[in-house]
């Protein structure tokens, strides 16, 4: 049967979703911003990878040492120039600003790169695969994406729980004013968090572009998938995000096995079902639930 295969492929696909989603989750957890341009930033990463790899004539992986620091810098600049100002105007302003940014990015990309779908040069890795038992073929590229996601999530978890930077981030996320009172400089904390979020988004964008194709409008779909992974997994839990991504990926591939047309619909329905039954997601703290529901639930 193909079911085992579908589940394995779905889990591997879920890794990619988790990789996109972790930046979204981090930004929300620390700065209380849902970055509606997150998916577009991932697509920007893919386009930057395309430009660099075709200019240098190398597979896109070779350009990562250039690309990731650039994305990190872009994230810091985004935070310092735009989001920091938006946060001063209340809770709705970041939503409006990041949506406006998303419109600008999508249309600038259309101007600069046309609406043609593109793919990235993944080198030999893109085509290699190995057999796992009868009828199950695993692509090295998918496996790499999944393992990268696990590595990034573990790395983030370690950074947050073991380093002094992580302590500052957690303190800021818990209580901004108290963190300031005890002498934490919040601005660099926010800037580095935004940098990491955009760098992971760009890395995810590279995998999206190598595995499939992308065009200027892919960002909205990417955002929706990332958001669904975050909500299904539970806000503020990085491993929950991985579980959410895997749940999405498995649903998509298994339903797609029956009828490809229903794959994305099934994913959206799974998301709406989780929202109905367990609005806080599968692995989440009570405090995080209160955060996403706002205090509106009080009425």
């Amino acid at each position, binding site marked *: 049967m193909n079911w085992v295969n579908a589940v394995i492929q779905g889990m591997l696909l879920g890794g990619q979703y988790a990789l996109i989603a972790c930046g979204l989750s981090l930004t*929300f957890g620390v700065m209380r*911003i*849902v*970055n*509606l341009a997150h998916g577009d930033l991932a697509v920007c990463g893919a386009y930057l990878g395309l430009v660099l790899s075709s200019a240098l004539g190398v597979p896109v992986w070779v350009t990562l040492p250039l690309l990731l620091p650039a994305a990190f810098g872009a994230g810091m600049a985004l935070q310092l120039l*735009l989001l920091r*100002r*938006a946060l001063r*105007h209340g*809770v*709705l*302003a*970041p*939503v*409006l*600003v*990041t*949506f*406006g*940014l*998303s*419109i*600008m990015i*999508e*249309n*600038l990309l*259309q*101007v600069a790169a046309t609406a043609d779908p593109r793919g990235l040069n993944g080198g030999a890795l893109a085509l290699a695969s190995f057999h796992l038992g009868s009828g199950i073929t695993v692509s090295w590229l998918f496996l790499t994406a999944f393992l990268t996601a696990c590595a990034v999530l573990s790395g983030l978890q370690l950074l947050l729980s073991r380093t002094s930077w992580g302590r500052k981030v957690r303190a800021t996320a818990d209580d901004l004013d108290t963190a300031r009172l005890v002498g934490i400089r919040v601005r660099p904390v926010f800037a580095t968090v935004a940098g990491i979020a955009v760098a992971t988004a760009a890395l995810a964008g590279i995998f999206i572009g190598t595995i499939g194709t992308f065009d200027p409008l892919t960002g*909205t*779909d990417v*955002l*929706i998938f990332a*958001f*669904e992974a975050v*909500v299904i997994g539970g806000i503020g839990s990085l491993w929950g995000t991985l579980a959410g991504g895997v749940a999405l990926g498995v649903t998509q591939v298994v339903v797609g096995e029956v009828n490809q*047309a*229903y794959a*994305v*619909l099934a994913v*959206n*329905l799974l*998301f*709406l079902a989780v*929202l*109905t039954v367990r*609005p806080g997601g599968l692995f989440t703290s009570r405090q995080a639930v209160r955060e*996403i*529901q*706002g*205090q*509106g*639930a*009080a*009425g």
Partner: protein
Amino acid sequence: MKRDTAVGSRGTEPSVIAVAVSRWSAAASAFTGVCVLAVAVMAVIPFVIGGPAEQPLITLLTFVAMASLWNLLAGFSGLTSFGQQAYIGVGAYALYLVAEHGINPFGGIAAAAVIAAAVALPVSALVLRLSGGYFAVATLVVAATFQIVATLSPSVGGTTGVSVPGLAGYGDVLREALIYWATLIVAVASVAGVYLLVRRTFGLDARAVSSDPVAAASSGVRVGRIRLLAYLAAAGGAGAVGALIALQTLYVEPTSIFSIQYSVYMLFMVLIGGMGTIEGPILGALVLFALQETLSAYGAWYLVIVGGLAVAATLAASRGIWGFASERFGWSLLPVGYRLRVPPPPDQVSDRPARAPTA
């Protein structure tokens, strides 16, 4: 104009200050008169000028309706939905379905509004659990889901779409005039409906919910009910707008009717004009209309500018053009709040019993 006395008790001795609490003004009366006149003039345009004036006005009036409805949702109630295209789509398909069953398509506009609000009821139970950015993305998911459902439904033409039936009996001139009048009615009903709604207690409650739900709830505002009412009203209005768009284009196709572009436009008009005012969205609709007339030839650059202006407006002028003007010059042509003024001559203090100021 009411003249009330409020007792100030901030100092050690309570002092009596006479304040004037007013909402309506001569300017507001004059402007309402101008509005009525403008609507009357627009109503007779099909007899006088006809087609050449109708087409651009249809676009403008559709913008006015979309902006006013989104303002009710985001500006007054704090629900920044980027998925109102879901109900625009539902309205358009509802119009097709009722027209298919032999009902007059122009009567179908009202049916489309009711159907869109009915569809919004179960959806609201899901999305209103969330707030802020999470609400925003959840509404995007809902719109994407509706689009897929339409694509997968052969009864409404799947990916190819359907053309709106029941219009063959009308001549071109009559059909266009009827669509124009229908758009005018929906636009006027949206602006007037939102205005009359927010002038009631609902307006104060909604703004309280928007700025601080906990404080609102603890003051006895029924937060859930206010949000539900705003969401359903905006969805019903979007359904009527969707039905109009279906009549204007004569064709309903999933990718264009569920396009996120509608949300982009709504956001832009309300932000530029001024959130949480009645005048602002109308002004924003005029600005977007002017931009579209001058820049739409530049394709994607047009939307880059629209997005950029929206970002700039949020950061630099968060109250929009109208918010700025009313703050700077004290203008208020369609007032929704009350103003409290201390009259200059101190000898005019009235002896009427004290009443709490209303705003």
